């Protein structure tokens, strides 16, 4: 018997060993030395779930790759030096002007290096996209509850990536040494000097003497091309290793549990999707870089502390502390002959740090409030965690208002408003706005929960208007398909809260942890859950279906194909014929 002709799989033809190919031989050679096959067998088939919102982090990853590629190009020509030179390049309006070598080389890249301006603009646009996509990724994670156990540390890494990306952006737009970037460094110098006692010393340390000195550009350059990118790379790697280790979260649905991942394998599906997405992000960056002017340094001219331009703003991600600074009332106090500039310290040195710490701690605060120690791999819809969703929307509102305040002068001239009135409005709005946003979002989520229950119990609206023999009109409701109903109900019930902390439980056992903090925790738990709408119980569902069946019986005579409800997207229509009764 020729054993080579015996089928070893359940396919139709027997598997036979063909002649080893050259590539196979090479693969074998590598496998014997690196053990790739065992690793690849597991990882190439790694499954990822499919949803558009899971690809937002990828935008950040790919724009980071674009940043690395274009950044390497720029380093080849950029001269990080504040040595003074006379410009004699192509750009006529600045020919003969004295400037730093950094600025001269930026002009050189823009006008005399082939493709240089495109690379500069792509680099800058990619930086804007990098930070923006990290933020929308962060929002997606928080709104869907993907920051819960076991992913809290990955949340922390993500936050560190966000703050490092922001700093990387700041050092980047400071490098060309044009009027705008110099103004930014000047502002940074002021912020450092606003810190009490040590401010002046820190400024001297950073600038190697009095501002501007000659060391700041070379120092920022090292930070920008070596220190922060290195940290970013390491943290991106850690972020993704943890992603692989935890496995990706997924939306609940039939067949999806806390213990599996339903989706497509890395090879060939996700390799193609993610690889394709890289080219799309690259393409978008190239499109922006090729068509839209960004940071036209030649128009700003070289930095000179005696000059400034209207519309001096930082890049968008530094805009919100700038906005806080712009609307801050001018408060100062003097202690033993030292001025404490609250007007600079509060909005720039304290507020962003506090906000960042809050962001960092969000998963831990939530876990403390809920006391939830379970692992979560199934996502929550934002409406099913109304208080959490409302918290983030409140933070977003605060951010957005500070952000808008950072563009107060542009808003004033474009919308013909008074910059003073914008400032007064914003001072109140940054406090009132988030509170309103919290209340509205929370109630909105609860209403949506109620709507889900409504659909579960009474069916969905078919759009078919029924006329009863008495002449009354009703809209016909039909029960949801089982899979949709499952998806809607695949969530935990929230624990019951009664609003006050009990030191002793029903069995007379002392509750763990008492004291003021525990009281706060109980109040927060109440806020978190008390108004939520819980999914219907089995009895309620049964009753709802029973009721619906009764109604269908009454409408039985009218139940024929021509009513068209089969084509509403909730039913299989293979055997249906339109008007075929």
């Amino acid at each position: 018997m020729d054993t080579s002709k015996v089928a070893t799989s359940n396919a139709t033809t027997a598997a036979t060993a063909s002649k080893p190919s050259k590539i196979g031989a090479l693969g074998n050679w590598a496998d014997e030395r690196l053990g790739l096959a065992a690793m690849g067998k597991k990882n190439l088939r790694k499954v990822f779930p499919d949803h558009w919102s899971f690809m937002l982090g990828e935008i950040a990853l790919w724009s980071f790759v674009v940043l690395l590629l274009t950044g390497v190009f720029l380093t080849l020509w950029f001269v990080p030096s504040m040595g003074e030179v006379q410009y004699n390049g192509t750009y006529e309006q600045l020919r003969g002007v004295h400037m730093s070598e950094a600025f001269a080389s930026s002009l050189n890249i823009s006008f005399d290096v082939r493709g240089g301006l495109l690379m500069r603009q792509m680099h800058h646009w990619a930086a804007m996209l990098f930070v923006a996509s990290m933020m929308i990724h962060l929002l997606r994670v928080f709104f869907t509850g993907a920051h819960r156990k076991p992913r809290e540390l990955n949340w922390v890494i993500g936050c560190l990536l966000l703050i490092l990306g922001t700093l990387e952006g700041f050092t980047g737009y400071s490098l060309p040494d044009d009027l705008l970037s110099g103004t930014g460094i000047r502002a940074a110098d002021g912020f450092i000097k606003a810190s009490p006692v040590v401010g002046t010393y820190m400024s001297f340390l950073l600038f190697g003497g009095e501002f501007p000195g000659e060391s700041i550009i070379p120092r920022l350059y090292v930070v920008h091309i070596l220190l922060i990118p290195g940290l970013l790379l390491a943290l991106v790697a850690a972020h993704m290793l943890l992603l692989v280790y935890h496995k990706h979260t997924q939306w609940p649905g039939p067949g999806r549990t806390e213990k599996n991942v339903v989706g497509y394998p890395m090879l060939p599906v996700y390799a193609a999707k993610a690889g394709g997405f890289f080219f799309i992000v690259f393409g978008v960056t190239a499109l922006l870089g090729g068509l839209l002017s960004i940071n036209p340094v030649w128009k700003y001219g070289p930095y000179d502390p005696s000059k400034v331009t209207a519309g001096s703003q930082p890049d968008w991600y530094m805009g919100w502390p700038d906005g806080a600074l712009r609307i801050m009332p001018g408060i100062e106090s003097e202690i033993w002959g030292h001025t404490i500039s609250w007007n600079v310290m509060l909005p720039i040195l304290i507020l962003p740090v506090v906000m960042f710490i809050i962001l960092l701690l969000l998963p831990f605060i939530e876990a403390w409030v809920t006391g939830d120690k379970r692992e979560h791999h199934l996502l929550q819809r934002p409406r099913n965690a109304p208080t959490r969703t409302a918290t983030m929307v409140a933070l977003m509102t605060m951010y957005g208002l500070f952000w808008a305040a950072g563009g107060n002068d542009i808003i004033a001239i474009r919308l013909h408003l008074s910059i003073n009135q914008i400032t007064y409005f914003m001072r109140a709005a940054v406090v009132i706005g988030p509170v309103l946003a919290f209340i509205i979002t929370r109630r909105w989520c609860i209403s949506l929960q109620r709507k889900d229950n409504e659909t579960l119990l009474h069916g969905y609206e078919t759009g078919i208007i029924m006329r009863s023999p008495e002449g009354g009109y009703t809209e016909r409701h039909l029960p949801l398909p089982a899979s949709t109903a499952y998806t809607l109900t695949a969530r935990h019930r929230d624990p019951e809260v009664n609003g006050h902390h009990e030191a002793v439980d029903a069995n007379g056992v002392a509750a763990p942890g008492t004291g003021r903090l525990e009281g706060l925790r109980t109040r927060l738990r109440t806020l978190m859950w008390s108004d939520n709408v819980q999914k219907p119980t089995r009895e309620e569902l049964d009753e709802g279906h029973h009721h619906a069946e009764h109604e269908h019986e009454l409408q039985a005579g009218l139940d024929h194909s021509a009513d068209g409800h089969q084509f509403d997207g909730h039913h299989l229509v293979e055997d249906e014929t339109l008007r075929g009764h």
Partner: protein
Amino acid sequence: MRLLNRSAGRLSRHRRGPLAGVAVLLLALLSVGGLYTLFSPASADETAASADQVAQGRELFLVSCAFCHGQNGEGVRTTSGDQLGPSLVGVGSAAVDFQVGTGRMPMVQPGAQVPRKPETFSDEEIAALGAYVASLGPGPAVPDEGDYSLEGLSDEEREAAIVRGGQIFLTNCTACHNFEGSGGAMPRGGYAPKIRGVEPRYIYEALLTGPQNMPNFSNGNLSPDEKRDVIAYLGSLEEMPNYGGFGLGGLGPVTEGLAAWILGIGLCVGAAVWIAAHTTRTNKKKVDA
């Protein structure tokens, strides 16, 4: 003569025709326009302000300006001590040419900012108004075109003038008018207007007379040549191609950030939705096992 009579008769026959009115109107407009171009004053400097012109200017002034500026241009104060209209003694015809020529005066209502609008007066009337105001006291005259053009300079001198103008612009003007002359905000609803595309004469006059919140750059402060250089630099920005692509209004990082979010993130998220919506297709052919 007979020929003339005959043709006159022919014309006369058409005098009540449907197009006759239009034809006569066109003829009248053409002759008035032609005569106007022949006799209109070339520039304030060339023709010394005649007494007639001053008189005409005074007439116009009394009708359109005196309510706020006073019947002799002495300025008017409100009962609360605020200035309704400032004194015009010594502002010169340059100020009139700027304010009236750009349509800012006569203003529609008092407010934080007098906006530019279509002008109310003809060039001739503006010149008359200018002559009248100049007669109130010595002040800067409307500049000559030679004052702000680079005519007669060699290429090298032109380039040097533009570079110098750029540096003066960045030192003195950008703090309010923005690095590209796109304009900027001033306190309480005021603003430094956009100065891209403004006629050189008006820029020169604005520098000379310091309208509204703008400081006055006298000739001792910025010499006439330096004023000319600033204007030349602004002109060179106009002529320069947009090297980086569409300029997003020349407003700096705010509009760039908007573009990054709306276009950049919009396109990328749109692509993500598209990719996620197009997933693998299984081969429906059944395997016969």
